[in-house]
């Protein structure tokens, strides 16, 4: 069972802000899902390799040739905020104000 502290940790890892009601309801859902996933512990999987993707992909490198890409102004038009040709993001360093 997920404790309240674990739930808070999980919200932090997932960068999700949730109201108290939402947190409580999701915690309930998660606990029921985790109980369901216990079904898998019935299976002995010792010595079984993980299958992360269904087809093997060998080398995906291409030759280092310059290709056309999107123009900077096209890409910046999709941004939340730009200024003088730069992306503008919320401040990252707390200046202690």
């Amino acid at each position, binding site marked *: 069972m*997920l404790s309240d502290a674990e739930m808070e940790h*999980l*919200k932090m*890892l*997932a*960068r*999700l*802000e*949730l109201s108290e009601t*939402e947190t409580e309801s*999701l915690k309930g*859902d*998660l606990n*029921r*899902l*985790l109980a*369901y*996933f216990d*079904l*898998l*512990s*019935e*299976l002995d*999987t010792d010595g*079984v*390799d*993980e*299958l*992360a*993707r*269904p*087809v093997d*992909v060998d080398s*995906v490198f*291409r030759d280092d040739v310059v290709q056309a890409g*999107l123009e900077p102004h*096209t*890409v910046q038009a*999709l*941004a*939340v*905020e730009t200024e003088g040709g730069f*992306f503008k*993001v*919320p*401040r*990252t360093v*707390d200046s202690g*104000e």
Partner: protein
Amino acid sequence: MREALARAEAAEGLGAFITLVPEALEKARTLDVRRAAGETLGPLAGVPVAVKDNLCTAGVLTTAGSKSLTGFVPPYSATVVERLEAAGAIVIGKTNLDEFGMGSSNENSAFGPARNPHNPDFVPGGSSGGSAAAVAAGITPLALGTDTGGSVRQPASFTGVLGFKPTYGALSRYGVIAFASSLEQVGVLARSTRDLELALSVMFGHDPHDATSLASPPDLTGAHGDLTGVRVGKVRELCGDGNSEGVLGALARTEATLKALGATVGEVSLPHAPYGTAAYYLVAPAEASSNLARFDGMVYSYRSGEDRLGQAEVMRRSRGESFGPEVRRRILTGTYALSAGYYDAYYGKALKVRRLIAGDMARAFTSYDLLLTPTAPTAAYRLSEKGDPLAVYMGDVDTVLANLAGVPAVSVPAGTAEEGLPCGMQFMAPALQDARLLRVAGALEAAAGKSFAPVAADFL
């Protein structure tokens, strides 16, 4: 084209489309002029298609059914869309879906639910619910969807049309707004096998923009012909009392038709099939939690909160406000499954079970050419009927296997089940044997004596 757009507008109450593309009319006129001038046009020239709204379309709003992509107009199109257009197809609209493809009823869309054309009180299935509704209602003969755990096949089953998920890697995922990259494939919904084949054949082929795209696509030359001697294995674990009476009746009818067409039908066991849903609902959310990390309100996507709050707080608020309940649930589940101390017990365990399931299927395919199961254990249910997320997940028991193993699968209409609503049967084939699925779908379609007709919907 005019008619397709008019039908789409008239059927607004279906909620099949998030955005319509009125410019489609102009494109159709241009094609008419080129045809009149004696130009040879592509095999899909002038065919109206509907495209699920998690596929990028240059210059056309693309939402993925989420508030987090508000106002996103992609500067490029998904490779599959580009190839359909190059063959002459014209996109008339972007279809409704569960947010980011996460759901099985189309009720998790930020733009409201889509409805089942057979009865608007019922869900059309999901997550490609809008695409299925558009094809079933006769708005377009073809639609693109995406199928991560059954999101093309299950809505096809619920609305009485064909739904095809190719071998993993057969269709490019470039321009698909990613949900679970090792599981998802673009898929096609149609009312005739011929249309399915045509669409697949113009979209197949390696795409250098997608590292998982196969070097050589499945060969479709065996897509026609009768079923004499074709060995069909009915999956024991999925053909029993977990299904509704109506679905079991449809299964029995399909089995009888297959035999009448010269196929042999035997029973085969996939011992790990009952664990597929649990494995899938760990792997898919784990990949989703990683893929959706990019929607953080920093450079792109929905941003909430003022600059002075700082980056971390703005990120948390933006994500908390813009993701719907199911997306949050999956992000948290996936984050948990991947977190330190739990990886081996959850994500790692699920990947091992995935290997066991793929092994079961490989063994079954040594004795059978095709595997048969219902596409879903029930026909469509009423909107708001299933409040419990786990109950919804359980409905994916038949379809998740093909995604876990990367094999192709199709849902073929199999008449009606409960309350006069349609249901479909699923066939799975070994990787790259997509042609076998077209062959069985074509044979069943011919046996039914007609194409799978659009609903004579009275909402139009």
